């Protein structure tokens, strides 16, 4: 079980949220080549280290947010403040 720091609801059990995966910059759909777009869709850094990732607080505030988590230890850091627009929809 993970205790995920939702910036709006505070620490929540991970089963209350939906995991949205790595937060990567989205290429511009108007100019991206199919290869770039598929790279964004499928390829992942998948580090055993700190990772920026998206979560959806489905049983609480029902908002998406971005946090950093160490994938080797499952420690979270820098929960973003309300109003922080990083990440957006995953």
């Amino acid at each position, binding site marked *: 079980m*993970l205790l995920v720091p939702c910036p709006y609801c505070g620490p929540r059990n991970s089963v209350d949220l939906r*995991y949205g*995966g790595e937060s990567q910059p989205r290429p511009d759909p108007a100019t991206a080549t199919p290869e770039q777009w598929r*790279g964004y869709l*499928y*390829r*992942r*850094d998948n*580090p055993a280290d700190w990772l920026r990732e998206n979560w959806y607080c489905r049983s609480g505030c029902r908002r998406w947010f971005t946090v950093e988590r160490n994938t*080797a230890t499952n420690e979270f850091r820098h929960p973003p403040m309300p109003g922080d627009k990083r990440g957006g929809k995953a």
Partner: protein
Amino acid sequence: MGSLGRRLGRGPAKYSAAALVWRGLRGGQWPRIWRDAELKRSYDAVIVGGGVHGLATAYYLARNHGIKDVAVLDKAYLGSGASGRNTAIVRANYLTPEGVAFYDRSLQLYNTMATDLNINVMFSERGHLTLAHNDSSLRTMHWRAEVNKLQGVDSSVIGPDEIKKVAPSLDTSSHPRYPILGALYHPPGGIVRHDAVVWGYARAADCMGVEMHQKTEVLDILCEGGDGTDGKGPGGRVVGVRTSRGDISTPVVVNCTAGWASLISAMAGVRLPITTHPLQAAVTEPVKVFLPTVVVSGSLHVYISQTDRGELVFGAAVDPVATYSIRGSLEFTEELAGHVLELMPGVSRMRLLRQWSGLCDMTPDYSPVMGFTGVDGFLVDVGWGTYGFKAAPVSGEQMAEAVATGRTPELIAPFALSRFDTGELVGEKGAAAVGH
């Protein structure tokens, strides 16, 4: 291959009933089944990962292609990763024609493995039941049965009455919340002793001169000519490996890791379509044999088999969050127990002995990533998700052919890394996993 030991003049290393009696009377230790060697400065090929995939690749390189100057490197001990943590199920009842052909070849190799490797892998061909609890999964079962039959794989859809005959302990009544409506029955499926497969491949590869190096961690892959930093990345080529025991020069590196596939590939500048998730499994105390087949329920996220020792082995879906931590969780045990009892109310008094987890490299289409990568000399055999053990023999055979010939064998062509650039995915989610 029945005379591995004799042929290589290493004394009575062959396993047989006579050898057992002779050793039993004479006493003393059995010889170690693979040697420890000094790490050389150069090899024809280096395989990263000493699990079933890496060892099988080394074995087939030596046996089928005569490439024996091979080192298998593992940062821990042989079989310490997914090879020693899986639930040991083998089957070929997949959904896509590419998948069925591939896993069927693997099953054939498992069938003759005991004689090929002269080791008892305890292959128990006991049949495999995939339960359907709703109309849509029943439809997928029919689909799989038809694809299987077309390729000559024995699968059929059976109803609750026949299920009751095959596995009487299952509750086929209409009482459960998710009643059993039917099942895909696949008689050639079964279970294999996973550790014996690791040891068998290691012993046979060792006999032919392959070196296994345990506690040898790969720190970097040395490349030149690539687009990225230090000559890594597409367009470059592999020149060596930096390990915790020194540098090795080699023209070929095969990444056969599970759990660390992304990290090893990143060392060569290759970015994979993989996220790493833990999968939890559990085992009960042993009881008398009552479950004659492997039972799988996709809707209930569980698969069950009874070992020859009598323990029930349970597996589940991967945990939803990508992580390299393999800590178990209480939610897993609770959910597992609830679902198993829904299928088999009779086991309510059985106690769990332990639970564990292993790392699974999940790909977007639930098919593996095999073959060449764009970096010359760097090959991958990764992305094995929750289905790596059953694919080990054929993966080794095909990867060895790719290394030896420099061409992608037909059987693994659909699983090339480039399919994620062209969008030609091989969707196996309907048959490869229980978590959907």
